[in-house]
């Protein structure tokens, strides 16, 4: 994209917003357009950006800026992937009684993030149904943990009385399974409503894994420590989170990261993708009743775990990211061994893949099940392999290159059929692409330092950072503060993908449900959110575990 076209696009945005509100303040920095509008104009501006300019909502967040500027603020972050732009719309809210207009009817995806802002900051939204989303039952109504006057370690008495998860009218068929299923890796809960064998509706409740990460990052940690905290958002795709966080701070503070550090980050990111996809492929095989496939996938994956330990010092939760670079170098010896391991893994994996796809049950059960049509995929703005399995050609690594991805050449596998097999094949192909990427990166690894020297992080700068996690695009938004982030917001990929489950599951046979739910590779420790769908014609309630669902 040429500079001129970017200017042109920016002018289009600014002119459009000025026609709605002539006094709008704006600022363009890195790849992000910041706009301030009053709350009366928020809905008009949203409609313009979302509907006319065809952007999608990345996320929204509230922020308590009373100590700084004397008010609450609400940010809506929109994305324009065609031009690689982020648009941040900021609205000031009253410090005593923050009330904002909802944009949920314009952008359905804003449902959760608005309720999250209400729970954590006490921002009320007008014109929509409000409910408790994030905080546990028994939490005091007027205590909002992300407000700056609330200490991070405040602990109201733990309520050991759980809410009744099932609504009373359908509780007649209660089976004592609860949110804990032995094969389930995380406490989350699906209810499928079935008529005969056909699923008519689905309900998901989660948020058992809300650990107060954002508050911790804003109150107890410093800039460098938050890297390690970010890695503990998720045990499977943690390195993506820590890279995304580090990039956000580097963008906000305009730090030049050495090329070598960027290459090392990309290598580790791809190693993580291989391990995550192999894990998923194994689990998918298990769900299809092909346990041999499960065991073999994990056998191959073990080599990758050992390689990760060899390169970073840890099997999981690598801990090598810092703001400004990385902590561990890859020397010639390690490079050689890494290539040897990759050769072995590639050989084993190709054999395995051939065997897996030759198993008739796998093909039969994955074909034509859990279909997500392209139109729905676009409307719901799904990300990652879920989008690519439905024919949406989206990949942050290629569209908005970060780390060292603009130095490598790789394909983005896209399948059009939108069924479980398509999502399986996307992941299967991505493993091969990842191996290819690591080989290229190791080959081109430039010489030089791995850590930027002498940098300062100025206060009150903001930045949006994107990264392609194994499950889709991960977004971190940061406002810098004194020695630590002033506000740090994470949006994980599964957040975008869960609503797509409703489309996939409706009208499908119950037996396909476990595979379909797993096919988006849900990660609940990242997502930590609730999705509630209205119950319609619920006849019978059946609870299922979704098998060895990976994070």
């Amino acid at each position: 994209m040429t500079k001129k076209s970017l200017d042109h696009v920016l002018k289009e945005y600014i002119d459009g917003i000025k026609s709605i509100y002539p006094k709008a303040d704006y600022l363009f920095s890195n790849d992000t357009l910041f706009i301030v509008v009053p709350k009366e104009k928020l809905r008009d501006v949203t409609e313009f950006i979302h509907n006319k300019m065809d952007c999608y909502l990345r996320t929204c967040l509230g922020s308590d800026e009373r100590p700084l500027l004397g008010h609450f603020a609400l940010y809506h972050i929109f994305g324009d992937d065609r031009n690689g732009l982020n648009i941040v719309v900021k609205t000031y809210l009253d410090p005593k009684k923050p009330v904002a207009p909802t944009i949920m009817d314009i952008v359905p995806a804003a449902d959760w993030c608005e309720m999250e802002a209400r729970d954590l900051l006490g921002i009320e939204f007008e014109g929509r149904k409000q409910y408790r989303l994030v905080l546990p039952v028994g939490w005091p109504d007027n205590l909002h943990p992300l407000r700056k006057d609330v200490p991070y370690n405040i602990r109201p008495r733990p309520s050991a009385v759980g809410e009744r998860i099932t609504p009373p009218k359908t509780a007649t068929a209660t089976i004592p399974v609860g949110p804990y299923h032995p094969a389930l890796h995380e406490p989350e809960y699906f209810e499928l409503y079935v008529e005969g064998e056909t699923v008519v509706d689905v309900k998901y409740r989660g948020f058992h894994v809300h650990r107060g990460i954002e508050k911790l990052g804003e109150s107890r940690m410093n800039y460098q420590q938050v890297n390690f905290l970010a890695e503990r958002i998720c045990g499977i795709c943690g390195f993506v989170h820590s890279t995304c966080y580090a990039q956000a701070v580097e963008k906000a503070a305009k730090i030049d990261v050495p090329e070598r550090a960027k290459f090392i980050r990309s290598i580790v990111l791809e190693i993580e993708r291989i391990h995550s996809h192999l894990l998923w492929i194994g689990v998918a095989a298990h769900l299809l009743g092909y346990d041999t496939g499960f065991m073999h996938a994990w056998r191959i994956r073990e080599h990758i775990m050992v390689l990760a330990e060899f390169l970073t010092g840890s099997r999981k939760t690598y801990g090598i990211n810092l703001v400004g670079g990385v902590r561990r170098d890859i020397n010639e010896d390690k490079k050689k061994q890494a290539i040897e391991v990759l050769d072995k893994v590639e050989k084993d994996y190709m054999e395995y893949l051939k065997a897996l796809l030759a198993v008739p049950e796998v093909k039969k059960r994955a074909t034509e099940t859990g279909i997500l049509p392209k139109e729905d995929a676009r409307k719901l703005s799904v990300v990652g392999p879920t989008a690519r399995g439905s024919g949406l050609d989206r990949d942050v690594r290629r569209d908005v290159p970060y780390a060292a991805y603009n130095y490598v050449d790789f394909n983005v596998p896209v399948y059009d059929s939108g069924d479980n097999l398509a999502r399986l094949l996307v992941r299967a192909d991505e493993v091969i692409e990842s191996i290819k990427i690591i080989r290229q990166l190791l080959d081109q690894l430039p010489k030089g330092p791995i850590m930027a020297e002498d940098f300062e992080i100025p206060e009150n700068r903001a930045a949006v950072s994107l990264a392609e996690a194994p499950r889709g695009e991960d977004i971190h938004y940061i406002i810098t503060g004194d020695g630590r982030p002033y506000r740090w917001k994470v949006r994980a990929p599964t957040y975008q993908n869960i609503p797509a489950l409703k489309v996939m599951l409706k009208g499908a046979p119950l037996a396909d449900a476990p595979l379909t739910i797993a096919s988006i590779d849900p990660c609940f420790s990242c997502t930590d959110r609730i999705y509630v769908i209205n119950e319609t014609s619920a006849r019978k309630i059946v609870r299922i575990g979704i098998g060895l669902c990976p994070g």
Partner: protein
Amino acid sequence: MSEYIKKSIWVFHLNTGSCNACDIEILDALTPYFDAERLGVKLVVSPRHADALLLTGPITYESLPKVIRAIEAVPRPRFILALGSCAVGGGIWHDTYSTIGGVPELLKILKNRGIEVDGVYYVPGCPIRPEALIYAVGILKGILQKKVKMRVRKAIA
């Protein structure tokens, strides 16, 4: 070491708000490379079938009531394997607003409610290594010895 449990230990996996790293390492321990099943460890589908709980995570408020119910459902003698730094002492979340801070706090709550636990085995690490999990199983079965003695030091205020 238990005088009641010497042979196959059936375990129930209880995630109380962990980040999944420990959880995938548990699975890893059961797959071909480590193969804990050769020691008789089996992941079971209900706490009612289990001898021991593999507890990961710092125990969030939201999951607390469900955790208590799951522990109640385990028949005596019941053992808890607290896996990972989060479960051992709350880890990095030891004083955040939405967690109770690990198994020691949970044991206090259980004691107040009169729910007894016959033994707790702490496996530190972030995340735990599959070898550590297998070692803990060895201790539980009485074929290995504990590596460290517990000594409580007061934190410097």
